[in-house]
């Protein structure tokens, strides 16, 4: 902090109250070129579950890199900030930049946090790597220092819908014009963005959209929606839900005996272990569009396949036997790529250099543990080699079914058997 103290002294009386409280924030920047990265994630509050998943991925990557000697010959340091919502994001991004003096910020999983925080980074010419927020508009603002690893919502929702048309509908043997599809999504950023893009693809394909409904993920009851679908009898149900409402919905669907021929989730609840635990055997057969860390490693480059194994084993070792989730995988992937590829290529923590190194990065598909490659679009700075993968719960495990070469299983059990008879899938 640099204050022109002489002038300041004149106003000391008036100002004292305000400043004394902020004094403890004073922090000296550490050695010039140590790789110190800011991390902005929702670690408490309603988004905490997946936020902490991402954090484990970041942490694991950092630990593994440091064990290999760090970056620029020094240990990597993370300045982690818990940002439960976008209101805190501006403040905390500013603090990371000015007080912690970070040149790179990694975030943030929630689109709203990403919107607010990346704007601060852009103003301060600090590089912001977004690992998991999907809102399309995040990268349509022409920002020069914002890079996104994950695919946007339109590709997730649209991809999921396309997958249904390509891989599921033929198995049902119903032509598109007669195929009845219902769309259900939670009404925050994630759900609406994904739901609306799925809708666009479905409309184009000419299927019958019998219902498109949103609801709040904080709800304690989804039985009216279940009842709606019992009435409308869609063939396929496409949903986009967070974990709590996902568990609630599928359990209530089971209780009410709602039977549809195929069910597709879009990330959120549908690729986390808690979902499988909550549903028991009945989780089997449910399809998911999203990212997976349970892909076929034969599709990965040899080097990456080794890292893939290491990621799984180290994760279980360091986090009490816990199996990694997709979000942990994405977090790991982003942090690993930044520390392993981008920063060494940049050679220093100079943001211009980091930016150029990022733009120059060219990793083919199959070179990261989630299957993606990395090549940032020079215009939008989105990762052009990220894509959703498609999974199905089989034997209470999530198994990738598409795209090639990452599938380890085939789509089974379409149309789905009744509830309670899905143990064998």
């Amino acid at each position, binding site marked *: 902090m640099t204050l022109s103290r002489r002038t300041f002294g004149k106003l000391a009386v008036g100002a004292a109250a305000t400043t004394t409280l902020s004094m403890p924030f004073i922090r000296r920047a550490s050695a010039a070129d140590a790789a110190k990265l800011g991390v902005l994630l929702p*670690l*408490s*509050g*309603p988004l*905490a*579950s997946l*936020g*902490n998943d991402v954090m484990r991925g970041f942490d694991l990557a950092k630990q593994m890199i440091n064990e290999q000697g760090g970056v620029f010959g020094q240990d990597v340091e993370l300045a982690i900030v818990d940002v439960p919502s976008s209101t805190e994001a501006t403040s905390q991004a500013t603090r990371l930049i000015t007080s912690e003096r970070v040149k790179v910020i990694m975030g943030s999983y929630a689109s709203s946090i990403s919107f607010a925080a990346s704007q601060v980074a852009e103003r301060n010419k600090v590089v912001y790597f977004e690992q998991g927020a999907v809102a399309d508009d995040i990268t349509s603002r022409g920002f020069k220092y914002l890079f996104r690893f994950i695919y946007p919502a339109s590709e997730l929702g649209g991809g999921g819908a396309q997958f249904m048309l390509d891989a599921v509908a033929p198995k049902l043997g119903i032509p598109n014009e007669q195929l009845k599809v219902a769309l259900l999504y939670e*009404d925050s950023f994630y759900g609406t963005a994904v739901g609306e893009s799925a809708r666009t693809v479905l409309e184009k394909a000419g299927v019958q959209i019998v219902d498109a*409904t*949103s*609801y*709040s993920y*904080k*709800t*304690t*009851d989804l*039985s*009216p*929606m279940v*009842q*709606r679908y*019992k*009435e409308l009898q869609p063939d396929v149900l496409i949903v986009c839900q967070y*974990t*709590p409402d996902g*568990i*609630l919905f599928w*359990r*209530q669907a*089971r*209780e*009410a*005996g709602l039977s549809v021929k195929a069910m597709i989730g879009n990330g959120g609840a549908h690729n*986390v272990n*808690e979902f499988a*635990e*909550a549903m*028991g*055997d*009945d989780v089997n057969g449910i399809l998911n569009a999203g990212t997976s860390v349970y892909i076929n490693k034969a599709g990965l480059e040899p080097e990456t396949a080794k890292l893939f194994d290491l990621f799984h084993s180290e994760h279980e070792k360091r986090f009490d036997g816990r199996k990694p989730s997709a979000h942990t995988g994405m977090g790991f992937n982003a942090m690993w790529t930044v520390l392993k590829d981008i920063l060494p290529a940049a050679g220093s923590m100079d943001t211009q250099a980091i930016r150029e190194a990022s733009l120059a990065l060219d990793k083919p598909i199959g070179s990261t543990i989630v299957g993606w490659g990395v090549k940032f679009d020079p215009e939008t700075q989105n990762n052009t080699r990220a894509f959703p993968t498609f999974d199905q719960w089989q034997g209470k495990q999530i198994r990738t079914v598409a795209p090639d070469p990452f599938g380890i299983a085939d789509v089974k059990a379409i149309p789905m058997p009744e509830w*309670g008879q899905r*143990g064998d899938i």
Partner: protein
Amino acid sequence: MDTLIQLIISGALLGGVYALAALGLNLIFGVAKVINFAHGEFLMLGMYAGYWLMTLTGINPYYGAPFIAVAFFLLGAVFYLGIMRFTIYRPELTQVFVTLGLSIALQNLALMFWQADYRTIQTMPQGMSSLQLGGMHLPTDRVIAFGFAMVILIAVIIFLRKTFTGRAIEAVSQDLMAAQLMGINPQKIFVLTFGLGIAITGVAGGVLIPSFYAFPSVGTFFVLVAFVVVVLGGLGSVTGTIVGGLGLGIIETLGGYVAPDLKEALPFVLLILLLAIRPHGLLGIKGAEKETLK
């Protein structure tokens, strides 16, 4: 027609959940005039209690309810003696922010101890998750929760009407000064009320976990609805809580069927409308809404 009946049944069962979640709140609200913003967190703790009981000892929370009740009675007494005692004759704002502080602290303690994972248990064997009744589906866990709500309600009413202690609680809730003149020690009554209110809330959490999930901020999903139920039914009216809960559950389910997007707004719109027409709630004491709790 079948759909309508099914919706009404689902709504009534949801109403049971709401009533159960709100009963303890109303008891404390009615007697000690404390708006407990940490109510949802006690419910959350009850859910975790049910969860751990099942995972660690294998005891189904339905059978374990008495243990939860005893433990949470003590927790409630500690809650009163350790914190709320200092706020009881204070302005309502003090109570709001003290309980709010507690809510923040408890939520994040749960986060520290148990992490942010969503935890669920299955109490019913495969295929028993719902009862079939003339073409209607009744989710077993919610039916049981509903049963708990009714039993607890009746027990509380009998306790308040028929026992000396219960009548003393009623007396304090209606007129603190008069009760004191009658030789009732309000401190003891408050400890008892908080114990009882929190015990009910704990049991509620315990029997709700089979049909929901436990995670640190799950309380926030329930607390606003619980407030709405209490105000709808009427401050200090135990029967009102059930009526309010059932009414809200059915209206919400029917409304949710017609316009899912507006489902979440229904409780609040209902609350504002009802208060505009009948400010004291459905079964509340007239004039209670004018009561400034200091």
